[in-house]
């Protein structure tokens, strides 16, 4: 029981990563009806950006050029990384998706995959195979609540994830751009007729999704401080599965799917040998999709889907 409660926090932590990344998949999907297969690598690049920003800021702080406390460094790193990561996402949009707006969706999937491979190789070529250690921005404190030990990092991850999701919700429901995004996901064809600059909205969507991936990257880097260029592949694809599990294009679904996948994985790993984790986790995903073929919160397949 104690162990279960302990694992609950692990599940929430991993669920936060998956959910934050899955949001990027889902938002792009709800507008363009295609999955941004480079998103996992955007997450990877964002984590590296976070690493360099954090190291740079810590360097400046230690040279006493900038009077920054550790918490201030963390906040600045987060903001700067989210800002810079959004440009990575915009770059992917411009290179891989905009030229193929009217092409078959599968072609865009291929360009997305290729941009992803390009980014992995570019990071590998630029930084070498040596693994980078993410700096410790916040000194770890372990809280003990009854029998359960929780680090401040886990709580921070959880709080940040929910905070960002709330901000995203506000953005989508309260701002003009958010309204345009909702309109585009409702009817892609009519929106340009209403004078809404379609490409601007798409760029915003990619930027938002990538900024969330950037936040996930910082949180992930602080918890698992070893970075390598292929880290985005596995986490990215799992977040993709989470997005589908929740229902494609559904933002609420992406969050639920992310946490659900986190729970499934951690609980399988906690109760069965850890090598069985992927096997059981994906079998459960397969089962869920067999009984709910359109995901938990997804709409049924319709002619709207542009193949």
């Amino acid at each position: 029981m104690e162990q279960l409660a302990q694992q609950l926090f692990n599940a929430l932590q991993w669920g936060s990563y998956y959910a934050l990344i899955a949001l990027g998949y889902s938002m792009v999907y709800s507008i363009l009806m295609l999955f941004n297969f480079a998103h996992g690598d955007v997450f990877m690049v964002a984590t590296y950006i976070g690493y360099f920003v954090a190291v740079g800021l810590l360097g400046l702080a230690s040279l006493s050029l900038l009077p920054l406390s550790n918490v201030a460094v963390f906040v600045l790193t987060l903001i700067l990384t989210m800002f810079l990561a959004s440009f990575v996402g915009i770059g992917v949009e411009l290179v891989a998706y905009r030229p193929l707006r009217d092409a078959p969706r599968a072609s865009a999937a291929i360009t997305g995959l290729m941009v992803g491979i390009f980014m992995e190789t570019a990071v590998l070529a630029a930084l070498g195979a040596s693994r980078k250690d993410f700096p410790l921005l916040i000194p770890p404190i372990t809280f003990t609540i009854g029998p359960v030990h929780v680090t401040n990092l886990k709580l921070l991850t959880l709080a940040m994830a929910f905070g960002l999701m709330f901000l995203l919700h506000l953005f989508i429901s309260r701002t003009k751009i958010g309204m345009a995004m909702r309109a585009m996901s409702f009817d892609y064809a009519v929106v340009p007729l209403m004078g809404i600059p379609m490409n601007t909205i798409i760029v915003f969507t990619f930027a938002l999704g990538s900024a969330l991936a950037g936040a996930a990257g910082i949180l992930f880097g602080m918890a698992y401080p070893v970075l390598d260029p292929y880290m985005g592949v596995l986490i990215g694809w799992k977040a993709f599965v989470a997005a589908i599990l929740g229902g494609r294009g559904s933002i609420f679904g992406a969050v639920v799917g992310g946490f659900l996948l986190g729970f499934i994985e951690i609980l399988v790993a906690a109760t069965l040998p850890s090598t069985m984790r992927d096997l059981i986790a994906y079998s459960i995903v397969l089962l869920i999709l067999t009984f709910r073929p359109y995901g938990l919160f997804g709409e049924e397949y319709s002619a709207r889907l542009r193949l």
Partner: protein
Amino acid sequence: MGTQTALSRVAIPWRRWVHPVAAWFRQHFGDTPLGSWLLGAAVATLLERLFGATIAYYLGLGSVPAIFGLSIVLKTPALIPSVLVFVLLMYLLPTLLVAKFTTPLFLRWEERLSTRVYVLLHVLFLFLILYFWSQVDPYRLLVLRLLGINILLTLSLNLVNGWMGEFSVSVAGFMSVGAYVSSVFMVWGFVNDDVFGPAFFPESLAPLAFPLSLVLAGAVTAVSALAVAIPSFRTRGDYLAIITLAYLFIVKSTFENLDFIGGPRGFMNQPEVASFTVVFVWVVLGIWVMHNFVTSTLGKATNAVRDNESAAEMMTVDTRRVKVVAFLTHAFWSGVAGGLYAHVIGYINPSSFDLRKSAEILGMLYLGGLNSVSGSILGPVLFMFLSEILRPFQLAKWLVIPVILIYAMVRRPRGLMGFQELRVPFLVRRRQAQEEARAHAVAGD
């Protein structure tokens, strides 16, 4: 469109060199049929097999340049003259001479032989070319066999992604099932192995049993593909893509957990039975079967399911049957390709069949073009060609290939041969085809 016409109007300096050469070529080789070219190339590769090493030595190349010297040229530009002389002497000259002198012979055959026999003759020449070419260098042998396997994979994937319009990424998973099944069968039956004990049958029987093991591998893969085919009744598009993705992960994880076949360490000791000839025969067989499948009623039905499932259902297409057949055929041939792969490489482990492998095959498929048998041959050929001439550059290879693929997708979003087909009977009988076209033009069709 506009840019293209503008480009063609730009005066390119080398045009004035190209035009006379093209005119000379057209004058002397205008009606040389494909068969003559193939025979010429076969003779050229035979000569290379016999004298290539000597000539390369005297040209200062060390050994025979593996892929027409292209990667040598990219790596050490100082050797360009030697490579040019080698290519001219070894490939161009014999091919041109033989093609010129056998033209009348082939034109006579073109009229006498039936299309089937004539096409078979071309396949035979193609085999001879590739066979001689591959005998020079073990590296060429390996690359050609892998190319054949990739053609099989791309073609079988095209069935689901192209003809049926789904997005399947499980090709590496199907491949791994086939690879493991055929490896286990062959090692258990024909090899003295630490795990599976002494061989049941003498090892000399292994080449005979290899086709059987491939069919078995294909069949087992097809059965396992029911896990993907049955959910496809209710869902399609992205959800099916996820199901195929989950299949890939599940298969990989299963093999990692099966300790008696090595788990994550992998499985080796496969007998050397996948010679070039064997791979070639299977690839030709695969292309033939797939071509017949997609031109059959069932193939048209598959297209109908892609374009509009409900409408297809109303036109009496049994959509469930179509889906099962398409997925199972895809899985069968991917499994066969996996079995071939295991015996070509001689070592398999679960992580050699990961998502990256699927992405590579998808890249070949979409480069070549959906819904096209010839595209599924062209795609892997181009992709492998690129990746092999860039091999000396190691890491940079994976920077260049994505850029080229993205450029290709942007310029031709449907792939190079998407929804088009080279018609083989017309290809091999050019003169006849030309005359027919002329007759049609005169008749005013």
